């Protein structure tokens, strides 16, 4: 049961070498490595709370075995902090109170970020509702999240990414 395998991945740009059991899913492996993200809501792929980016694509980290992530680039929302799209999302989430307890938020942002950086054609409220329909939020009732997503989508359409203000350089 406890035969372990060594894997190497990057977590938010930092190289991590981990010894994992073949049965350990990626979310648990990252927790064992000391990361506070992702969080888990169901461990059967429905609630979306553990969503993160694996090689740039969103995955449910409870449905990915850690050994499958050997050699992958993993990003949680902490790894996207310099993204101008994420910064717009953060502002819009704050402005519209699009979070309450915050448990679903980091995964909600991953899903939203992936959508907004894919240059979506349909940026209606209904489209935004469908985008986040795999992320369970028990607190907000979703409306404020939808408002935030649609607002950022409209901002990006009006002024595409390359014309957005660059994030401040770290001091």
């Amino acid at each position, binding site marked *: *049961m*406890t035969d372990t395998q060594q894997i190497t991945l990057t977590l938010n740009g930092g190289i991590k070498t981990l010894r994992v*059991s073949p*049965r*350990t899913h990626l979310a*648990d492996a990252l*927790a064992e490595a*000391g*990361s*506070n*993200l992702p*969080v*888990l*809501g*169901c*461990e*059967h792929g*429905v*609630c979306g*709370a553990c969503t993160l980016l694996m090689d740039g694509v969103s995955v449910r980290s409870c449905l990915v075995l850690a050994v499958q992530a050997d050699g992958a680039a993993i990003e*949680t*929302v*902490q790894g996207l*902090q310099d993204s101008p799209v994420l910064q717009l999302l*953060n502002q819009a*989430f*704050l402005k*519209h*109170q699009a*979070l*309450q*307890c*915050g*448990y*679903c*938020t*980091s995964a909600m*942002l991953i899903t939203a970020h992936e959508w907004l950086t894919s240059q979506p054609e349909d940026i209606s*409220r209904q489209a*935004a*509702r*469908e985008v*986040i*329909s*795999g*992320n*369970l*939020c*028990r*607190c*907000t*009732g*979703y*409306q*404020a*999240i*939808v408002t935030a997503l649609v607002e950022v989508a409209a901002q990006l359409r009006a002024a595409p990414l390359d014309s957005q203000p660059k994030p401040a350089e770290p001091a």
Partner: protein
Amino acid sequence: MSAADRHSQRMLAGAGRFIARKSRPDGLHLAVLRSPQGGCRIDHLDLAAAQACEGVQAVYGFADLPEGQRHISARLGHISLTGEQKQPLLADGQTRFQGEAVAAVLAESRALAEDALEAIELTLSPADIEPPAGSQAFERVFAGGTMPKAAATSLSLDFQFARQAGVALEPRGLVAEFDAGSDQLTVWQNHQSPHMMRALYARLLGLPEASVRVITGDVGGAFGVKLHAYADDMLAVLLARLAGRPVSFQLDRLESFVSDAHARHFDASARLDLDGQGRICGLQADYTNHIGAYGLYPRSSVGDAVQCGLFSGAAYQIPACQITVRSRWQHRPPTGAIRGVGQPIPCSVTEQLMDAAARATGQDPLAFRLAHLAKDRQSEQKTPAGVPLGQLSLAACLEKLAEEMGYQTLRKRQAEALAKGELLGIGLISFIEQTSPGPGLYGPAELPVTAEDRCEIRAGEDGSFLVLTGATDQGQGTLGGIVKIVAAELGCTESLVQIRSGDSDLPIGGGAWASRGLAIAGEAALLAAQKLKSQIMGFAGHIHQCPPETLQLKAGRIEDSQGRLIAPLAEICQLALYRQDLYPPPVGGQAVVCAEAGYMAEAPHFIANGAQGSLVSIDEETGFVRLLNHWVVEDCGPVIDAKRVDEQIRGGVVQGLGAVLFEECRYEGDQLLNASFADYLVPMAGEMPDISISHIETRHAHSQLGIKESERLEQSGPRQLSGPQ
């Protein structure tokens, strides 16, 4: 930036610290074997093979627990339930419900502990277990006025309400550490009420209360699920002491579904009597609440039923009532408080009767309601069962709702649709909501829940403020509201006010329940801020030889009535802190920079009210209901943070919509069939419409803030959808 925004920003940055990620390198992990079936005798339980598994520190059955620490009991001081049993922390020879912990494994990791669970041999056989399923635990009759001997018209309806789960996205969890050297217990737990848990852990372990500390930290949704003290929580803490190492206990989703509080499982029948003029003259109702295998520790499980008695017909003028409520045992998990305790069921029954009465008398449901609602702005009214209501605005809310909905236009649209064979439904409800109970609720019950919240505020040498509160916040925005109240009173920006919460070492408080955050803890914070200001002004007045009552505190400056600077606040604070040598008694030695105050509701509780409306389409062939629009008009008293209040309402409404349209614990016998998110449906974004919210404001008469509820727990929801007439 406001305190609530600071919390939000931390979450947005992915910096939340939730309990499952609290790492204890020297710690053990607990997993419990949960009974696959309730109502059974344990024929065989063998733990030996589990004990031999890799990484296992210890395995426990009931008999391995120390005598005197094996049980909890939800027996209340003023209500005893027929057939009630003490609840063992691990099953004692029999299992009363599916999900009950039978054995416990402590191992080096959760995965190894779960492996060991598989090596436990357990054989069960169905048996007659006390109390028998279906036997009565509790009955009470609530009567008011004289029921009419004969009514011109009587409308009778029968109801069934399904068991519902609370579903916090973050499952329950705790880390318990017992320091044998100092006899100190520290528990980090995602809970709503750290002070209550401190008392309960101290009682279980026989420790002085002051030796126990409970810290709640970031909590990923609670909704009442995290208000209780579950047998497995108590077990985890006990085992941390027995094992002599920290114990981490983190439930998964499947465990949550079979062990968290469920609620709202009711059968009901109700009758509304009308006189010859079509006026309501009586309400008769029978409610049977199926409450599971135990009263849920420590609040027991009669709240839902009692509320049905107290609040049936509450929003209406009903001269007489006869309401019987019963609770019955089941071989299912204990039921308890989840969001909106006991209020959705009587509201739903009442509103469906109102629609039936409107239909029977040929009146529009809006007009019928307006003609019978309890009167606005009168202070002497009571519910049919005699609960005092305070100042209401029911008619104002319903009229505003009709305006917001474009009610008459919707009725025309409904008729036009019907002519084309399309079914549109328009639903209306009026509701009152009891919030923020005073000491009359849990005092007689002898529960370790303070009705009072206290608050301490300290001014620092730089004129910043630290607020210590007994309130807790699981995302409602309560702490942000308290900071706003304090900052306004102390004349400073919110960025100069820090707040600490969620720790039983802080001033006492009941924690988060019954929408009490700002109504109770907010008022306590206001009183503490007033006291602190008065102390600082008194000291400044003495130093500068001017009457304190002429001074004001503004943006870190103490000013006279003309706005001239008397002294910077920081200077006064520094003198008070460090230069008491200059001020001999009686001025010196007095409290200046630290003030403490408490608030307890004088009224039995606060009453908020409002109205909601829905527009739905119904597929005649499939019965599929699509919610097209939903409107809310709410009177929660003065609003401290308008946006957060609205988002609390939206969240509450969507949970209510979930209960109406999707959520149901489906049982076959006593086996839960849908214990996963794949099968137990909660509302997702795609199914929900935008929800329109507006406000009417009526103040609570007995507090300075006048707030009636804050963290919005209202979940009455759109129970009633009136079909085309």
